[in-house]
């Protein structure tokens, strides 16, 4: 029971931290409404800042596919670690058998890792 209660306390703490962040952002808004903070909008001020040049086109464009490789590799290894955590907690009870199992499991991933390396998935071009 206290196990679930802990999550509840953390959830409430999350609410507190969001409220804290919200108030910090809202204080300047209120001060602007009161006239303490200056608010003199102009087209030049709210233009996109790209070092003085006029912006050409939108920046909401398609992006380099290199990031896709990284995301795939990340998924592979992150799922590996998700499997490793329960194994690590039960490590003392599993003994030698668990160790050998894990070496085989990591070994398979190392093969995939070497393949990715040879295919130059880690090169940044």
């Amino acid at each position, binding site marked *: 029971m206290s196990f679930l209660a802990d999550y509840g306390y953390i959830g409430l703490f999350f609410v507190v*931290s969001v409220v*804290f962040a919200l108030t910090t952002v809202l204080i*300047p808004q209120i001060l602007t409404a009161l006239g303490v903070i200056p608010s003199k909008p102009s087209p030049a001020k709210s*233009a996109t800042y790209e070092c003085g040049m006029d912006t050409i086109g939108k*920046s909401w464009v398609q992006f380099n596919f290199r*990031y896709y490789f990284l*995301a795939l590799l990340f998924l592979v290894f992150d799922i590996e670690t998700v499997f490793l955590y329960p194994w690590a907690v039960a*490590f*003392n009870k599993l003994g030698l058998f668990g160790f050998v199992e894990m070496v085989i499991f990591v070994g398979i991933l190392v093969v995939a890792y070497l393949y990715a*390396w040879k295919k130059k998935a880690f090169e940044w071009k």
Partner: protein
Amino acid sequence: MDWLRWIIFVVIILAFALSFVMAFILLERRIVGKFQLRPGPNRVGPMGMLQPVADAVKILLKEDITPAKGDRWVHRLAPIVAFAPALLVFAVVPFQGKGPGLGFSLDQPAALADLNVGVLYIVAVSSISVIGMIMAGWASNNKYSLLGAMRAIAQMVSYEVPLVLSIVGIVIASGSLSLNSIVEAQSIPFILLQPLGFLIYFLGATAEINRAPFDLLEAESEIVASYHTEYSGMRFAMFFLGEYAYALGVSAIVSVLFLGGYKFPFGLLPQSFIWFLAKIFLVFFLMLWVRSTLPRVRIDQMMAFAWKFLLPLSLVNLLLVAAEGVSTIGFGWAAVGINVILAIAFVVIWANRFYRVKGVTVG
């Protein structure tokens, strides 16, 4: 009673986080100043101690600008998404353990909630801030911002893997995911038992919170200020504070996982939260030291460092720790000797390999 406890801890955590973040901002500027043979900010108050207060007042009174071409609401929400999870990290950090300590004794560990999956919780929560960065980069409709946000994703995704793998070694040695049990298990601090794991975690965490030498997404000479180029006033301050709150979080986690948290080394003195706070400052000083020593790395070097250097070493570290666990060596002083020697050997050999092979150089 439980509610009273919750309120007390919320107040403690907020006070702790805010005062330490302020102290860190000042310390960083003063200490980096000393490293660079200049005084640093020393005019406001005694020894410049009121500088963060002056900065806070100044930044609060700045005009709040939203770019005309940007996505208004995402632009407004981004700083909150980036900042709020930073505080969540401290919810599971134990400030002092159960039993007698220096001055007073406690009947349960002093943490808001001692989750039995604390380590997983921290890994999960500390990755959320990158969503705020992406929101900021995307909503600004600025090419520099978007480039910075993309770098942030690539960096986060790459360094997450060695970072998480290096903690598995800790979990094996302590047999628990709860941060309090991990501290209790450290009769020998894990930095001695797993020096390789400490190095990997420290470097990975430095990269994850985008501190120098991995502060690529804030490379002023390349992409202005990246994802917060279009921010001003308090919303800029939220990103800034969030960064330091994460630096504080990482310092706290390193102290808990590797330096023995609230315990005095080798139990020479009784446990106390004072040792924990001292260790946080120590780890933060180490970060500043790294920052002022090393120049910023290039982006291809950064990716290569994560995937080709840290990842193999973290797998080696994992196998090493596991092998010691199943063999008769165990996790005693014998393992400390073996691991320190092997850690130096592995780092030197693997670094040399990159130094020699042209085309894939890291250093």
